[in-house]
């Protein structure tokens, strides 16, 4: 990998993740003097938010499924220009399984190919982690029935595959993602029988100053809400899904109102017929690569300073990996991270005045995100709805009862011990899907799990990984 237009000696930054944060970082870093290798698992840039309709599916108006289409066009054009100028290399379909430190600099270890079996190593002077997040889903009886999908999964099907997942849908859970998912489904022709959110509207009133300070965000929400009205989607706030029903696949969902303590009010249970149930309870940051590098993790997110630096020298992080707050926040953080990296790798002390606008946006959006996070909380007693025979870990088919017994009978007190005693979280997804649920059932705080391998890696690849590095 050589760049024509910038001296071979100018520092190289590896950006992992080509979502809003990674793209903003790449553009800022390239514009301010770095050579950038942008690495992403997806076939196209864009990340979660600008997820591309797969080429060839012939989406005539992809912008109808996206808002902020103009932001995206600006980023995409910028990326193309820098690639043409030889300042940025975009490695697609590269699944990063690990990043390691060398005596000076870093090696990004990736896998490619249809089976993710071929190794590729990228060396760089510094790395910027913009790996985004993944969806949090809490279990309930019936959630493993075909027809129950994650909210993001439904959205991705709409944006990426342009498939309409079902005819009658219920969108349920909590969080700001449910609105765009419901409107997206409705716009694509599904009948959305209900939008069910466990958030208590009073929580928003209590946090109104932080929310009101972000008129653009509120307007975005209001636009979605108006669209819901237009499509005649009934919204049930302070409600939750109690159970999904069906024989071979989903046929209906039972929903119920919550009382002030966050418990289900049995007298309000009612059944809604549907063949698609899209559920989501917010997002969790991807912290595996940061964790493997030894970066400090606060709760479930990568810890960063004002310049988006982690506590490991040479490692920056931005976007949802550092805390969940939407695409615009990811853009601001990515921009700041890219500017800081460009200055520091060129031996300059960065001048934050250069990114004052992004800084202001970041501050406001983080306050907004914190307020939203408080307001959009899963029902306080959701775990009570998980019956002993509800499967909690789908990979290893571990039930709620087995998790409870590990705690009450065998002396487990944390997610790791529950995992060792029950196998919950030992399967293919390595607990990404069930970690929150297991923590809730075990009654312990949720923490970021240690997964030094962000992706499974063939032993033959591992046996040679980075062997050239140590010889330096």
């Amino acid at each position, binding site marked *: 990998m050589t760049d024509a237009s910038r001296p071979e000696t100018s520092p190289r930054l590896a950006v992992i993740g080509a979502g809003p944060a990674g793209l903003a970082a790449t553009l800022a870093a390239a514009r301010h003097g770095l050579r950038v290798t942008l690495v992403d698992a997806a076939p196209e840039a864009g990340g979660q938010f600008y997820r591309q309709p797969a080429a060839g599916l012939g989406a005539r108006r992809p912008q109808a499924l996206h808002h902020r289409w103009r932001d995206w066009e600006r980023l995409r054009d910028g990326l193309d220009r820098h690639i043409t100028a030889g300042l940025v290399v975009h490695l697609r379909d590269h699944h990063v399984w*690990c990043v*390691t430190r060398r005596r000076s600099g870093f090696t990004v270890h990736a896998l490619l190919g249809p089976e993710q079996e071929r190794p590729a190593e990228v060396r760089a002077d510094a790395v910027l982690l913009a790996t985004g997040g993944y969806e949090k889903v809490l279990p309930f009886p019936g959630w493993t029935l075909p027809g129950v999908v994650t909210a993001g999964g439904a959205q991705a099907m709409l944006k990426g595959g342009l498939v309409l997942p079902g005819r009658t849908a219920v969108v349920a859970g909590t969080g700001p993602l449910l609105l765009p998912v419901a409107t997206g489904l409705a716009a694509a022709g599904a009948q959305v029988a209900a939008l069910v959110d466990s958030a208590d509207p009073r929580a928003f009133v209590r946090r109104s100053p932080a929310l009101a300070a972000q008129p653009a965000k509120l307007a975005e929400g209001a636009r979605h809400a108006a669209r819901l009205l237009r499509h005649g989607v009934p919204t049930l706030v302070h409600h939750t899904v109690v159970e999904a029903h069906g024989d071979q696949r989903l046929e209906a969902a039972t929903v119920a109102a919550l009382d002030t303590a966050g418990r289900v009010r049995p007298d309000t249970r009612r059944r809604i017929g549907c063949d698609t149930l899209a559920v989501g309870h917010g997002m969790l940051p991807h912290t595996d690569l940061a964790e493997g590098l030894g970066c400090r993790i606060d709760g479930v997110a990568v810890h960063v300073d004002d310049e988006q630096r982690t506590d490991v020298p040479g490692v920056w992080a931005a976007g949802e990996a550092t805390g969940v707050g939407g695409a615009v926040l990811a853009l601001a953080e990515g921009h700041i991270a890219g500017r800081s990296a460009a200055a520091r790798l060129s031996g300059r002390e960065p001048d934050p005045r250069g990114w004052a606008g992004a800084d202001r946006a970041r501050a406001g959006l983080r306050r907004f995100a914190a307020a939203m996070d408080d307001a959009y909380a899963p029902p306080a007693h959701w775990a009570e709805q998980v019956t002993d025979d509800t499967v909690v870990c789908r990979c290893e088919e571990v039930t709620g009862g087995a998790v409870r017994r590990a705690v009450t009978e*065998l002396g487990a*007190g944390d997610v790791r*011990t529950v995992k060792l005693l029950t196998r919950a979280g030992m399967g293919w997804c390595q607990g990404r899907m069930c970690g929150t649920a297991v923590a809730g059932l075990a009654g312990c705080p949720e923490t970021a799990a240690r997964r030094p391998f962000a992706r499974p890696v*063939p032993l*033959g690849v591992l046996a040679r990984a980075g062997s050239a590095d140590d010889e330096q």
Partner: protein
Amino acid sequence: MRLTCDVVVIGAGMAGAACALYASRAGLDVVVVDRGPVAGGTTGAGEGNLLVSDKEPGPELELALLSGRLWTGLAGELGDRIEYEPKGGVVVAADPEGLAALERFAAGQRAAGVTAENVGADQLHELEPHLAPGLAGGVRYPQDAQVMPTLAAAHLVRASGARLSTGRTVTGVLRGASGAVRGVRTDHGEIHAPAVVNAAGTWGGEVAALAGVHLPVLPRRGFVLVTEPLPPRVRHKVYAADYVADVASDSATLQTSPVVEGTAAGPVLIGASRERVGFDRSFSLPPVRALAAGATRLFPFLSGVRAMRTYLGFRPYLPDRLPAIGPDPRVPGLLHACGHEGAGIGLATGTGQLIAQVLSGKSPELDLTPFRPERFGEETV
């Protein structure tokens, strides 16, 4: 002063669990305290090989043989729940010199009571069809077995009927005017008992220091690799003869001859590296890479098999590589059951049995002299 119980066991790892089981069965009233959950220390971060094959004749091998008999007994009541598998081990040698050394080693073990069968190059693949071609031969050890350590610790504590108090940190050892132990102080009140067992594993030195005595337990880091689940293809515990040298090594630098074993649930475990780097929890590629290289050399088919995860733990290492087991003459009422390095799962049952015999005033069935806790002298910690 009212006594809470007869014995306080500090540590709910494998060693503490076995001490609790045998002490309770000897009729003693036992409380087990741990600052974390059950098996939250090294027991939940290692593997469960119960090996005689890697031990040279001497006190550790005697303890391993006693422990093996006790594990077999426990398997009758708890076998399935603790995933006990008496699968046997196969140690292989790459070349004729290595094989000659291995066979000499096995002959010595045989004289000490180990069952060890020489296996010719032509028979190796009958035992392990997927082994690499061209190996010189090996030795089969039918007494090697395995358990799932976390399940074993949890179910032994449960079967003991001892009271388990988790999330409770011992902050002091209480002593009477005569200097004898009166119990422990914890962050949630005192527990009063005339006997205290230090089963704090890698942290056993810190607990000893709470009682004012020196016990130099050091952490020896190990990584383990776990593959995706596979249909059974590795039947025994298989390792190369240089593993024994790694285990016996004093060196602080990295040693990585791996043991390869299938598990009941399907994943293959590859472990474990050995290096003394303090309590450094960060991921390190060189040991993990070396484990992968060693495993794929033994079983070439593993090249295309994915590692799902890797984890690490800190073995409790004492300078002469023998555990500390038995009463501490410096503090009457204090007993130690820690420092088993990379064999604390296998050696736990024998350790628990010996501790219970001392606690109930019987003479222990093995000579405890080689394990005496005061053997490292009195230098201050």
